[in-house]
């Protein structure tokens, strides 16, 4: 449920390092808590995001939540499919439900993120 090779934030986003860029999404725990995502608001490519600052908004039937950037940098790509199919975030949070690819501005920030083990402890055993 919480892949070892990802980095995690306390706000339930994951970050995956891909050739110096970072792909970003939310964890399965967050996707299950939200359930039934109906809308997502993401920044435009070229805009900047700042570590642990809100970069977007996710809405489920019940609630609206901010999304927090795991790293600072420039948005290189935005998942174009989510606008029409936000439910992919529930179905495949680590795959088709990805949100952004960020061009890292400060690789040292990755040290601030949690390992899979630390994240599992944060959410209590990994069982949502």
């Amino acid at each position, binding site marked *: 449920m919480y892949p070892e090779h990802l980095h995690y934030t306390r706000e339930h986003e994951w970050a995956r390092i891909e050739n110096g860029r970072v792909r970003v999404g939310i964890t399965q725990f967050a996707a299950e808590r939200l359930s*039934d995502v109906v809308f997502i608001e993401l920044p435009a490519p070229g805009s900047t995001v700042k570590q642990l600052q809100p970069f977007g908004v996710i809405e489920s*039937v019940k609630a609206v939540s901010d999304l927090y950037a795991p790293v600072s940098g420039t948005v290189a790509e935005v998942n174009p499919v989510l606008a029409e199919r936000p439910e992919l975030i529930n179905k495949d949070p680590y795959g088709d439900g990805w949100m952004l690819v960020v061009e890292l501005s400060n690789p040292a920030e990755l040290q601030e993120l949690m390992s899979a083990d630390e994240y599992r402890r944060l959410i209590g055993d990994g069982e949502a």
Partner: protein
Amino acid sequence: MSSQTEILRRTSLHSTHLHHGARIVPFAGWEMPVQYTGIIEEHQAVRSRAGLFDVSHMGEIVVEGPRALPLLRRLVTNDVAQLEVGRGLYTPMCYPNGGIVDDLTIFRVAPARYLLVVNAATTAKDLAWVEDHRGGATVRDISREMALVALQGPAAPRILSALTTAPLNELRAFDAIPKVNIAGRRVFLSRSGYTGEDGFEIGPAWDDAPAIWGALLEAGAADGLVPVGLGARDTLRLEAGFMLYGNDIDETTSPLEAPLGWTVKWEKGDFIGRETLARQREQGPTRKLVGLTVEGRAVARQGYPLRREGRPVGAVTSGTFSPTLQVNIALGYVPRDLAAVGAELEVEVRGHAVPVRVTRLPFYRARK
């Protein structure tokens, strides 16, 4: 929202919900299931097949005796005198200033006995209000003795008919059978609900609810009956255009501002709030609660400002994505001159103006 220190109450179905894998949340002082498998999935089950809800958190108050009818005629805006035994109605209960104490259903369960089904969050307030005006009627809070489950959806009659010999097809909407056998238990039964679908509300003794629940799920398995949480209860009622007390109506709104004018029976004589409401009717209420269809995918939520060409005109009271219509829908108060169907407004969603259009209620009506 509840604080950590508040002691939350549990219905007799609590462990059943945990067994079904429900996500439990604090609601109106209770631990209640918000969802089992997912709000949209549960919503669609009710629209297309059937769903089973635990609504035991709702309050039940019995008013009885020779003074019961005059008391209720005075307390609520609808006319209880029209009820034959075995009939019920929906009504607001107002303060003298026309504000709403609560909205409730009242069933006449015996010649001089009425059952009031009230909102969970307002049960104590309602009870105090009714008792304050009691004037010789007997008032009993039976909320802890009576559970309540709702079986809702087009398959509800077929499912229930397997568990009772009661003449279900003779029951019209808001008909009730005060004492009837279902799955071997004595229950209160009414053809009513809060989803916009056909269905029943079943009131067993508190500790009999798990047996009734289990029997219904078993009888309904072939029809695809599933347990449904409060999340889908809210999306279902909003599509059906039903008011939610605390969101859409409260002590600061009147039945004439809300689309509940049909529940105010002027011809019956005096009732609490009449004077204020009559004045409001004469002058026309300054604002109206309307249905809104929202452009785009962002949900217009409670409290979001409504504007007309940038000028603030009101606020959203309830909003959701509609699983049936696949659009965003909302309710909100707007000035009377902007309340006509088709009027174009904006809702402010996180700093953006999103177009909304006043839409006829209900958003959804079940096919007969």
